[in-house]
């Protein structure tokens, strides 16, 4: 199930990056997790047949291109526009991901996306409610972008459909 989940994560994230922000990405399954201290992250929580949190982490240097492409402007974008773009990106990835995991008849309630403005590691530990061990997501996609990198992490509460 973990392999299938990661394949879907890669597929959806690559497709949404390309269609929404005209950014091409390449899978980097073998690389280490990116440096989260030089990155911006956003999360979105959802509840339905299963609950969880989806997180996008993107290199600082990639964010202006993401926002500029989504807005279709060449001028410098504001920090607020960049954050808004990243929140919309994770929102669209989440909306496209859940039906592929749980089926198109499943109904999920998706919260408003949020920027993670304190440490990503701390945020992940809080999701899992533990701080004494390495926190592992149920699925993770590591992507290379023209400028920088992007990680997508999926944390799940409860059992995924195929596990039942």
């Amino acid at each position: 199930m973990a392999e299938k989940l990661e394949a879907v994560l890669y597929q959806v994230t690559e497709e949404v990056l390309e269609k929404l922000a005209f950014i091409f990405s390449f899978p980097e399954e073998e690389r280490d997790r990116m440096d989260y201290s030089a990155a911006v992250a956003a999360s979105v929580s959802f509840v339905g047949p299963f609950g969880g949190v989806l997180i996008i982490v993107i290199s600082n240097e990639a964010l202006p291109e993401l926002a500029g492409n989504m807005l279709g402007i060449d001028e410098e974008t504001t920090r607020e526009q960049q954050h808004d773009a990243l929140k919309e990106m994770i929102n669209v990835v989440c909306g496209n991901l859940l039906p592929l995991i749980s089926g198109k008849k499943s109904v999920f309630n998706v919260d408003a996306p949020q920027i993670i403005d304190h440490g990503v590691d701390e945020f992940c530990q809080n999701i899992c409610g533990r701080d004494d061990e390495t926190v592992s997501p149920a699925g993770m996609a590591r992507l290379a972008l023209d400028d920088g990198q992007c990680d997508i992490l999926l944390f799940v509460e409860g059992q995924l459909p195929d596990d039942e």
Partner: protein
Amino acid sequence: MSINVLIVDDSGVMRAMILKSLRMSGLPLGETHQAANGQEGLETLNKHWVDLVIADINMPVMNGEEMIGNMKKSPEMRDIPIVVISTEGSITRLEQLQQKGAAFVHKPFTPEKIRDTIKNIMGLGGE
């Protein structure tokens, strides 16, 4: 005929993307209005003549489903064509929206998809 459009989405970036797509679509755009949630959308509809509403579903304060429900209760608003542009992937929810007469465009979208959906729901056949 020019089309006055109201775009309702809590994301400013998404409103800008939709507006850009509308401008690229070749549709005869008139006035364009924007709102960040369903409540603001209804307030805008009370103040301005709008021919088409483009709305998201998941929004704070008042979501898109509730806004559409309120529009359908109002004699002045119930016949305004509605296009929902959302990440919603649940067939169950989409069927509920279709029963209320709304057309649906899934995110991420192309300008062509928005154009064709608007032409269809507004009965705009040829150029």
